[in-house]
């Protein structure tokens, strides 16, 4: 199972507590995780990536295994630790405010 951590506002919107666990078919990538996430939680469509371009929204970032993966191509395979569920894939709202 793939583990995904959502920011608070998206957990509220999706009505979930804590981490989300997903079955992802095929190669585990940003795109395949987000496809699976949006299939299970349709209300999240358009909130992480654009409806039309499928590009990451500007104030959203993707982290895993202490790496910033935000600028990796969406079809790049993610680290094995994400694939095995050892580490979560984090969707993060860019820091702002104080």
């Amino acid at each position, binding site marked *: 199972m793939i583990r995904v951590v959502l920011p608070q*506002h998206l957990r*509220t919107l999706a009505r979930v507590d804590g981490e989300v666990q997903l079955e992802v078919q095929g190669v585990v990538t940003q795109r395949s995780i987000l496809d699976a996430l*949006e299939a299970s939680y*349709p209300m999240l*469509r*358009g909130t992480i990536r654009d*409806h039309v371009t499928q590009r990451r*929204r500007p*104030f959203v970032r993707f982290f895993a295994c202490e790496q910033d993966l935000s600028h990796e191509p969406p079809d790049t395979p993610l680290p094995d630790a994400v694939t095995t569920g050892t580490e979560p894939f984090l969707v993060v709202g860019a820091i702002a405010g104080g």
Partner: protein
Amino acid sequence: MSGVRLLVGTRKGAFVLTSDGTRKKWDVSGPHFAGWELYHLKGSPADPNRLYASQSSGWFGQVIQRSDDGGKTWETPGGGLTTAPEGMPKVESNKFVYDTSPPNGNPLHTHQWYDGTQHPWEFKRVWHLEPSLTDPDTVYAGVEDAALFRTTDGGRTWHELAGLRGHGSGPRWQPGAGGMCLHTILLDPKDPNRIFIAISAAGAFRTDDGGKTWRPINRGLRSEFMPDPTAEVGHCVHRIAMHASRPKVLFMQKHWDVMRSDDAGESWREVSGNLPTDFGFPIDVHAHEPETIYVVPIKSDSEHFPPDGKLRVYRSRTGGNDWEALTKGLPQKDCYVNVLRDAMSVDSLDPCGVYFGTTGGQVYGSADGGDNWMPIVRDLPAVLSVEVQTLR
């Protein structure tokens, strides 16, 4: 038993305030959608339990929420949890995509940017939701960057009425301080094909064919911030209001100037009269007196607070020009809040109730047409919008 329900949108969530017909004691529900910006909420005139809300965030974009029980529970239309998805669900309740198809409008073009250069159209958020007068599933949405969308399936999908941007004057539209927003939508109760809209800063437009074609209705407006102060478009209209019994009579609060039209916007004349300042944002009409109108004068476009630190609603019983200050129950010293364009509303009880919210988080109400005011709540986040539903 009659009552009223106030739908309050704020910078950090939505609140629903309810009272019986006396409008003395209020119950407060919320925050709904805590932490999100709620630019606007509005109920369907055809089904008062059907509510729509525009929820947005600089991080996560636009979300549309719908309630079928008067605000007790909410859902994203068509966005429920799917347990056994077959293929990707087609959830489009927050998908606002400009229509660039040749049959419907012009290719996506550019508008004027703050510095006078051209800038591409970019969707940012829904400013205003206007449910149909007769069909709970039909709603119009005014968005930033300025365009008009419509749903006919209860908010599940939205489609642009592209003839507005297709008018051809788009390159001369420009953003105001709050962005280039379509903020006012007035549906003519006597003619289902006639709609008025207003854009900051483009001006007012009207369609007479249900939204297919539009034309600017800005004759008589004068805006000194434009090279040609009387140009066809480019005016920063802040709000338009009408009384349902007289849809050809329109009242406008412009960036500066309070204006009036008696011919459905064909021409406008100034009715600022003895106002202490004619800058402001909201304008509204008494529910039972079509010549009684309300504004909240703000000192200037650079200061955005009431003159002399006194929060005063001004009422004209003569359709403009002659104005009286309404002050009882409102702070008359050290008050430096603003009242935004969508943050005033009237109920249809007798006497008429008038409500407005401030950027300081207060929502004030008057159960007697503005003679006396009381704070319903004092400490909400900055109020963006106030709508009232009269429940019978």
